[in-house]
């Protein structure tokens, strides 16, 4: 962990080499856990819940709620003191490093360097019908008080909407000669998003289009890290604003051009 946060922000007495949970006293390690078990509530089930907590590394587990859910299930709320620690100094997380630019700066950066608008294709792919997220990034209206990419003179946007197959998307990329493709994935059950995203990257590569194309994905369960692993150039999670995406696109496109 880099300490570029103002140092006063790290509470005094903290050892970054061994960070553990904090309840009300440094080092107490307190965590809260809840789960159901597929056995009815009973003193034995209570003991089973306790042992599970111990296996999770919780010292002195306290069971605060036990509930018989009926039909052979029980629910447990447990608190305990976690034995585990993390060496935060060893953590390195890939981060999106583009600078925050204003609407005007972004447009200037693109138009000055490219001399034309960047072509952006966006879609919510597979069986996923959740368009609100990709629309928030692309539509005029935008999100959280910021304009969407359509409003930027620097971008020409093709928003294909929902339930777009990877094939349709690829065709559109060819047709438009896109500079960047934005894929949204919201439904993550059984990891459908992972297989669908991986397929997309494979198809782009198989088609020889990968070079020169910026691949982005986003959605509430997407992280930049996962996106890189899947072969994308960037990933954007919950709460992303259009300007963050626009700034990244502009800077990354210019960086690659050089």
């Amino acid at each position: 962990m880099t300490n570029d946060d103002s140092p006063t922000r790290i509470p005094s007495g903290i050892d970054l080499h061994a960070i553990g949970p904090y309840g009300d006293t440094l080092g107490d390690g307190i965590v809260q856990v809840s789960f159901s078990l597929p056995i009815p509530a009973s003193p034995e089930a209570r003991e089973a819940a306790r042992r599970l907590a111990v296996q999770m590394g919780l010292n002195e587990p306290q069971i605060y709620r036990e509930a018989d859910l009926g039909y052979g299930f029980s629910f447990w709320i447990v608190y305990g003191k976690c034995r585990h620690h993390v060496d935060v100094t060893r953590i390195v997380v890939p981060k999106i490093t583009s600078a925050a630019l204003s609407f005007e700066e972004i447009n200037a950066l693109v138009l000055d360097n490219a001399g034309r608008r960047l072509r952006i294709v966006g879609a919510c792919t597979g069986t996923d019908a959740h368009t609100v997220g990709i629309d928030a990034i692309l539509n005029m209206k935008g999100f959280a008080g910021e304009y969407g990419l359509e409003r930027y003179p620097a971008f020409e946007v093709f928003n294909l909407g929902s339930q777009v197959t990877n094939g349709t998307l690829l065709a559109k990329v060819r047709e438009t000669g896109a500079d960047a493709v934005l894929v949204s994935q919201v439904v993550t059950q059984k990891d459908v998003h992972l297989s669908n995203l991986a397929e997309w990257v494979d198809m782009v590569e198989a088609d020889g289009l990968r070079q020169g194309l910026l691949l982005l994905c986003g959605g509430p369960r997407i992280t930049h890290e996962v996106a890189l692993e899947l072969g994308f150039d960037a990933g954007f999670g919950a709460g992303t604003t259009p300007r963050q995406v626009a700034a990244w696109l502009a800077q990354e496109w210019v960086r690659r051009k050089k």
Partner: protein
Amino acid sequence: MERKLDLDPAAIQRCRHAAGAIADEVLGFAAERTTVSIERAVLRWMGVEGGDTDCIPLVNRVVDAAGVAGLLDRGVALPFAEAVRASGLPPTDAARAIAEGRLPLRAPDAEFESAARDMARTLSAIGADRVRRTNRTRQRFLERLGEGSRPLLYVIVASGNIHEDTVQAKVCAKAGAQVVAVIRSTAQSLLDYIPEGATTEGYGGTYATQANFRIMRAALDDASEDVGCYVRQCNYASGLCMPEMATLGALERLDVMLNDALYGILFRDINMQRTLTDQAFSRRVSAAAGLIINTGEDNYLTTADAFDAAHTVLASEFINEQIALRCGLKPAQLGLGHAMQMNPWREDMFLYEVAQARMAREIFPDCPLKYMPPTKYMTGDIFLGHVQDALFSLASVMTGQGIHLLGMMTEAMHTPHIHDRTLALESTRMIATAARHLEDEIEFKPGGLIQTRARVVLGGAVGLLEQVRDEGLFGALAHGRFADIRRAPDGGRGLDGVVVKATGYWNPVEDSLDTLLAERDAEVVR
């Protein structure tokens, strides 16, 4: 219904008028058409079950055959009845024989025409009988066990596996659920067939199949006995198979089905001609089967802003109401939808929400109303989310809602875990107990924020409905008047399944439905 909001009756009247005109337009359009799914529903009603060796439903095979044979615009019933008559096979076997090319599907020769019609009427009457029995079974359950107190507490199961679903449904019943809905697998609405058999692999939900309906029904009947309260089953009469789903619901004793005039068009990009035609038929089936329908206005607020678009919800409720009444549904069967989707950090949002919820009650006093919980502003913070849901429960109790969908603290994360529902039910039951008579006790300040808000929203609905009436519903949809979404009359999925009826189109199930509805109305009068 006590009038707490001082709403203008003339404005309500104008809404009903405009919505009535819209409904007439839609139903007039639908009356001239049939669809592949309506025809498949007819076959299901007549007793065709099961699939071929590739698990393609036999009803699809037969209707496809009818399509190939150019028979659809006069209805599949008569050719199919002729095949049954000619072969002497039971309906399912006849359908299989047709699918396998062993039995021809064609219009009866003139000499058999009348016998074929009789056969069609007989098969249809058998279906009607089954529906009658189903209704009676539900009635007896309700008389014996009761339905519990209102609002009906409604939860969803969605594990993807019907067997896990039944376990979870029973656990819900134990925790006080009165309606259990099985959410369908992602995008099932886009399938132009209903899968077959008990299924254990769904995404974000469990496939709606006839077998799954039965399995869940049996589990809920068990649970009903255990808890001493009839627990209703809910599923979707929605998507490309809307009429068939309603028919299966009627046959397998579902009690509640989601069914909305516009949902499929707006949120699934189903063609509007298709869905509105399907709509008319499926609502008549629901009416005859004593199903409660839940409309889907709540969905609008997932894309549009709940504060700005409040009047679109009300307008759509009027349209759904007018279509439904014309299809024979009674107000008590209309779970008109709405949802608490306002930004909880907006000042006075709770007041606006109470205004909206109460307004719906006063305008539709005899409809149960289906009130949906916050989802849009849920964040994955289970603790704050649980409180958002608590505010929702209180708004529901305070305004006398009929069907209360339980909010889940894990909304925005995953379909509910087994205890999520128990915790939600516990919280809601506590609130409903602690605030039991709050609705009776409070009045709203004359001309205050709440009354004013209700009046503004009603005014907005008048404007929108009259605009839609003038543009025509199809035009309005093309202009994106609902949920900020534009749809073209010829766009979307399923248009190829719409068939303009030829003269001579005949559907005996329509006649059965008339009979059932007439019986019901006679019963009511008696």
